[in-house]
């Protein structure tokens, strides 16, 4: 009895947080199956083993995401991201007309730390790159491009904000970085070892949620 009284006293003395009568139900940022696509400018920086310097250029980026919900604050998705530039070169002396498309196909997690639309993104997956550099003219006078592809893995991190425009739709602002390891790239008689493409982009997208 003495112990029971002591326990009751302890329970009564323990401070308890005041609970509001009507707790607001936190809004889910995205529900069920959601999708998102968007565009924006980007910057790519190419480094390779044995290269004395890195080269960088700007280009257009686009992305497509589709996913589901893990919890009230965390969603999971699959993201396709691509950066295309028309002034690519492995060295600053490379001729104009070269093109490069680099991208990732990644599993991503979006974490919404609060009730607002701010989220942080992290992801990992496969990476790809396709590089074309104009070479000799073909028999018909057309320019033949040396094209090479590379594949490997990529990481992505970013931050974004969902701006609700209705219950079903949101405009989404993104800033993200992508680091992709593409392996060796062979164009013409040139062998470029261990290419790493780092991409940065800002974009605006439409989210269906």
């Amino acid at each position, binding site marked *: 009895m003495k*112990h*029971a009284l*002591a*326990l009751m006293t*302890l329970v009564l003395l323990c401070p308890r947080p005041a609970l509001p009568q009507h707790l607001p139900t936190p809004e889910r940022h995205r529900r069920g199956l959601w999708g998102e696509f968007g565009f924006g400018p980007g910057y790519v*920086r190419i*480094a390779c*083993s044995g290269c004395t*310097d*890195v080269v960088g250029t700007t280009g257009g980026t686009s992305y497509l995401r589709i996913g589901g919900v893990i919890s009230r604050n*965390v969603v999971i998705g699959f993201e396709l991201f691509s950066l295309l530039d028309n002034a690519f070169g492995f060295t600053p002396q490379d001729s104009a007309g070269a093109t490069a498309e680099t991208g990732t196909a990644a599993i991503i997690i979006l*974490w919404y730390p609060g009730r607002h639309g701010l989220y*942080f993104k*992290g992801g*990992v997956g*496969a990476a790809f790159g396709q590089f074309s550099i104009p070479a000799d003219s073909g028999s018909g006078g057309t320019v033949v491009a040396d094209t090479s592809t*590379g*594949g*490997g*893995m990529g*990481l992505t*991190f970013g931050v974004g904000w969902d701006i609700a425009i209705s219950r079903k739709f949101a405009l989404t602002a993104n800033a993200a970085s992508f*680091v992709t*390891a*593409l*392996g*060796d790239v062979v164009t013409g008689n040139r062998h470029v*070892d*261990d290419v*790493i493409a*780092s991409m940065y982009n800002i974009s605006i997208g439409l989210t269906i949620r």
Partner: protein
Amino acid sequence: MTAPLIAILLAVQFDTTPRPVMAVGQTVLINVFVNRVDAWAFQQDWARTGTRAWSRNLRMGWEWDEDAFPTNMFAHPYHGALYFNSGRANGLDYFRSVPLAFFGSWSWENFGETYRPSLNDWFMTSFGGITLGEVFHRVGATIRDNRAGGMTRFLREVAALPVDPIGGLNRLIRGEWTARGANPPEHDPKDFVLRLGAGARFARRFSRDQNVMTTGTFLLDLLYGDQVGQPYTGPFDVFNVRLVLTDYGGLNALRASGRLFGANLNNPHGRNRHMLAINQRYDFYKNPAQSVGGQSVEIGINSRWPIGSKGYAIRTAVFGDGVLLGAIDAPGTGLGERNYDFGPGVGARWEFALERHGARFLRVFSQLEYIHAVSGASADHLVDFGGIEAAFPIARGLGLAASSTVFGRTSRYSDGRPRDQRDYPEARLMLIWWKIGFGQ
């Protein structure tokens, strides 16, 4: 009644409130401490960083480094575990501690060294640090006992330091080395199997070699939780670790695999059990003929079929995996002083085991991994690893264990070099001691 009352009062001393600012601060502090020790105590030029080096690193970005295999594949993941556990030791859960591993490694690569940041380091430190960090955090919590006192308590705290130094130091600062209270949930995995073994290892450098090399070997096997018996409660609620040491080359193998997600595939109260699992995996194998390792995520099914009523059962596992970044040596591979390749890949493994009360006494397994090199040679590597293990009880908690494994590797080069193939057979004979807490 008195005992629970005291427990409630004392538990207050073990504050589990998340302290994210403290966690980030400790991550930065780890980098500053390691950098200054290297610069001041070891006089390392690469540690004498400054704004010029930071600016160049940020401008130039990632490259591949040429460090030795154990440095990249073990030391860096261990370093990453310190970052991760600065979060776990400050009340953050698994997922909230993950960014700390990436942040700690990224900031070290850019600001902690004069060298350009290394992409393989970022991968291995972050992903390996998360896997080893969570394993170390839970093993540390199991070794420590908040209810113990006196010399036993002190020795437990000291014993946990090598696996979870950040957790131990945080506890020391907070006075938790002596305070008594309730243990965290991860202290007691409910089901576990611990095996320690020592004996001889017989190996040939290649199958065709006639000379058999005999060395000493030590084995630690830990099964924490039951892959099919326990419902999923959170990341690494179930994991397994295998550590193999030899007196020829030291660390021979370290493998850790923890459940990130699990779901019942049939009636959880049924006799036969099948569970879907997504595991995060860390692999490190190094022997005189092969070096291979990496960070992976695997998905598959664990099953258990009981036989009779005396605790016997068949266990199977079938998994497919994606290698986020692996490393493997082969002739002509590597970059500069580095003699191995880095690359992502895919693979699969299966396992068949006979067990009693959770302890496997016969195990047959095989694993196949494909690695596409993105740094080093222009090559694709195929790794296969398989074998059989058996354990025979000779007394309560003691037994003899024998195993035979073959480690094979085939490398195909795109630059016209001939295909290279090698395999590495080995056998072990050990005296083992085990402790089992299963189905209790």
